[in-house]
């Protein structure tokens, strides 16, 4: 990137391997994605969560306070053939973010997956249930404090 933009729609912008990353706060998040959609980023390609429990000192631009969770959204602008990435910090004490469902209906499944794997809740999501794990599963598997674990053996050879 030739022009080093440090701010966009009031959010800090950083650069990662030559890719543009925007860091909104949770309050700015929905408005930012709306503004980006007006800029042409009309497709939400991907949404996922990251748990930075063991890596809280990761590099972030000034003014962005690191939190345990992050929601990462990849947006695509097919008119101008460019991508951007949005990273929202989500505190452990209150893991709630706004849902992008109204803007990008395609985030329905990825948001459910993030909820399932990290326990991050999305307000206004039409159907926030587990998607990959059984409904009554305890815990959120992709969290860093969730051990890999195992399922006990169910069937064994007979004793004789």
């Amino acid at each position, binding site marked *: 990137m030739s022009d080093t933009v440090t701010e966009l729609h009031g959010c800090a912008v950083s650069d*990662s*391997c*030559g*890719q543009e*990353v925007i860091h909104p706060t949770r309050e700015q998040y929905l408005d930012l994605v709306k503004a980006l959609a007006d800029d042409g980023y*009309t*497709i*939400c*390609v*991907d949404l*996922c969560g*990251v*748990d*930075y429990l*063991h*890596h809280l000192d*990761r*590099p972030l631009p000034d003014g962005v306070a690191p939190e345990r969770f992050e929601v*990462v959204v*990849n947006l695509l602008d*097919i008119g101008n*053939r460019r*991508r951007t*990435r949005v990273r929202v910090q989500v505190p452990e004490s209150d893991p709630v973010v706004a849902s992008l*469902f*109204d*803007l*990008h*209906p*395609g*985030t*329905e*499944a*990825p948001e459910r*997956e993030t909820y399932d*794997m990290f326990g991050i809740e999305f307000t206004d999501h*039409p*159907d926030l*249930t*587990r*998607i*990959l*794990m*059984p*409904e*009554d*599963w*305890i*815990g959120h*598997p*992709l969290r860093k404090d*969730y*051990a*890999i*674990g*195992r*399922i*006990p053996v*169910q069937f064994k050879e007979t004793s004789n």
Partner: protein
Amino acid sequence: MATTEEHLADENYAVFIPNTHEGNQLLKPRSETKAKELMREVGSVLRMSEAEAAQLGDLPDDPEDDQTMIINMGPQHPSTHGVLRLMLELQGEQVLRCKPIIGYLHTGMEKTAESLTYMQGGTNVTRMDYLSPFNNELAFSMATEQLLGITGDIPERATWIRMLMVEMNRIASHLLFMATNGMDLGAVSMMIYGWREREEVLRFFQEVTGLRMNHNYIRPGGVAADLPAGWRDGVQNLLDMLPPRLDEYDILMTGQPIWRERLQGVGVITPSEALALGATGPIVRSTGVEWDLRRDMPYLEYDKLDFDVIVGSYGDAFDRYAIRLAEIRESMKLVQQIIDLMPEGDYRIQDKKVTPPPRARIDESMEALIHHFKIFTEGFKVPEGEVYVGIESPRGELGCYIASDGSPTPYRMHMRDASFTNIQCLPHMMRGGLVADAVAVISSVDPVLGGVDR
């Protein structure tokens, strides 16, 4: 049942729940489903908030719940392409609502990736979308290379070998689509032909990588081995063999009235809906949107090759079938060019940090042995950062997001698989169709459940 507290006290959370039920995943009655979700299925107002939709006041005047029947299709249904389960709400033979339920093949690969080094990561990702293993490896390798900052140093031959393999993979994957699509609609001979042709492609893969699937051939820094002697003949034989057989498919399927009757106008989706739902690949192209990452955001050396992006116009199942058939021909065109342009040289980067020493050196030099041992046990450290790389797999955009904390294993690896988002189009495509059409729709989306559940 133990209480939650007891579960949490359990050290490794390994809880086996004896009576797992399907509670929340059931298709709920309309009275309990949010209007937003209902609107989405109607699809006409995809980009409206609930309030706006309520103002319109035209929630679909669907029948009462007691007029409809909810049936379950899958997860072991032969035409759901694996373990996809669909809850269908039917009125008579018409599908009103559909809820795809996934997770039956959830393998925890993203969790597994966090404990594998970048060197071993390929073996893991190659099993995700098991019909396009090379594409998965390519996305993962490209993401790793970006983090390492060695993207520009990859030898040319490695890049071209990657392109050759990825395009061959696209041919194999689409041939299997032809086979399954035929089978789902009752054209059993098509299934046999499809598998037969795919076998020939897999035979070539086996010559090069030693395996027919799950190759772990494309690795960070290049490819695992050079192409074997005589590979050109193998590819050329394939290219000579395929065109007449594709013409046979045309005779058997494309022009055939029954086939067209079953596919035309089935599972229609408009461009704006497809884009809103995040669909990529043949699905979005069938609606007339020209979007192909190979052309629009070139990676590898695709900008040096000449190929067309195939676009449909109606967004129905027939378009998706025709696009894939045409894409096989386009990929053959690409492979032909790659054979002619294949440069000589190294097949992997000579950066000692990433590439283990050649086998012959290990017998001669202790340093090489130690180095080899280190790379395969500890792996190589990857600088801190995060990166997203998207490529065009046979099913759409395959993205790999890696966050690294400077250790030899990815701190977090996420795969954006095209099938996962494409499956969301199902409720919308099926609405108003027949159950028999539902099968055609699933088949035309071509989901691979290994990629969906990861």
